[in-house]
């Protein structure tokens, strides 16, 4: 049972799992975990998948002996653009010129530098100046290449932000607004 737990955890984690983390997650002792990991390592020794000990912890990897065929798998297919990258690009397209802080405020999450640099490498965004506020952050905007790659004649071809939402959603926003207005009204009323 603990063995299956360890297998599933290591498989589903996006980072190698350290002994400490495995202990926290399974509530088992280091000894037990150690022993089972050793067993697993032996069981996978002849498989196409290996249980590897990497500096930071444990991770499943494909057997290096299969590297060539695995390369074939990946060479033929373009990867998908990630959700985070698309969201960042969309905000730049709609709000340009925009600073990174503004993007982060909208997405509610920190934008990794690798997203910005990937977008720059693809030639979809560029720095168009600096905002005259403390720190003088860079202002980002989309490029001509962006229009070409996304089959747009001009930025005007992007649908209005309001068109992207439908009535149901607008209604929702209005309802939230009512709540806000009411609250404000009540609050302003309560003040002497």
């Amino acid at each position: 049972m603990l063995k299956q737990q360890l297998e599933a955890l290591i498989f589903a984690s996006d980072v190698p799992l350290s002994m400490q983390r495995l202990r926290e997650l399974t509530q088992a002792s280091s000894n037990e975990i150690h022993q089972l990991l050793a067993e697993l390592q032996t069981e996978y020794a002849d498989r196409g998948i290996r249980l590897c000990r990497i500096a930071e912890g444990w991770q499943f990897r494909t057997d290096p002996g299969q590297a060539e065929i695995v390369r074939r798998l990946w060479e033929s297919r373009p990867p998908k653009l990630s959700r985070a990258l698309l969201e960042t690009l969309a905000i730049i397209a709609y709000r340009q010129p925009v600073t990174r802080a503004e993007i982060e405020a909208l997405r509610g999450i920190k934008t990794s530098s690798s997203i910005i640099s990937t977008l720059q490498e693809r030639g979809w965004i560029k720095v168009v100046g600096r905002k005259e506020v403390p720190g003088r952050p860079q202002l980002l905007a989309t490029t001509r290449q962006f229009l070409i790659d996304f089959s747009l004649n001009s930025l005007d071809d992007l649908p209005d932000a309001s068109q992207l939402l439908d009535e149901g959603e607008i209604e929702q926003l209005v309802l939230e607004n009512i709540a806000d207005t009411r609250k404000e009204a009540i609050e302003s009323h309560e003040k002497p």
Partner: protein
Amino acid sequence: MTTDQAFPEHHAPARSLPEVRLEQFEGPLDVLLHLIRSQELDIFDIPIALIARQYMEILERQTAIDLEAAGDYLVMASTLMQLKSRMLLPRQETDDEGNEIDPRQELVAQLIAYEQFRTLAAELDERPRVLRDIFLRPIFPEAKEVQRPLPEADLSMLLTAFRRVLRRVGGEVRHRIFTETISVREQMGKLLERLQQGRIELNEFLESQPGKEALVTTILALLELWRQQAIVVIQSQAFGPITLLRREEEHAETTA
């Protein structure tokens, strides 16, 4: 003779139903199925008078108004009332070929069709679902080790991504929609002007608004006027029509 007549209302089983609220349901069919199944009634022989009464009771208990769904609930209420009176007709209804028609046929078919999907939806929810019951390998380091074709640009995915952001930041959108088009203030003026000519029904007025933005701006204008107590909003019964009038007019009426 129908069951309704066989069991006149005062003879109907006096079981009291546990109190339910409209928000628990996914529409009028869901309410009816609940009434039928929880009382173990025969779906092929629905006591319409009893069900209609219970349905109306649930509707009346409703306090918050969801205008969009209200219409569907009301349509069902009138269907039930109509069925009730048709069931009381002494003569059997027949179709073109002279076959007997039960007035409840259509409703029963609708209920059975809906119930199937209600069950299937629950079963679908039971399936092992990724990120809830099942987890996949989240990273593919092998992919990084090869030269791959670049991901393709896809406009529809870009738009979907932006929609996601917009939905997350409702307030921001609000600001944008309402400042870019007709201003709320302008619409407030128009609304007051229109009200000079007398009271209006909300639905009628909203229908005359061209497009979504105008609609939203109008509603915001209305709320603002209401907040400033410049207008009065009247709804005399749940789900009933909403009437707007100027505050002065209201005074005129009460003093008249």
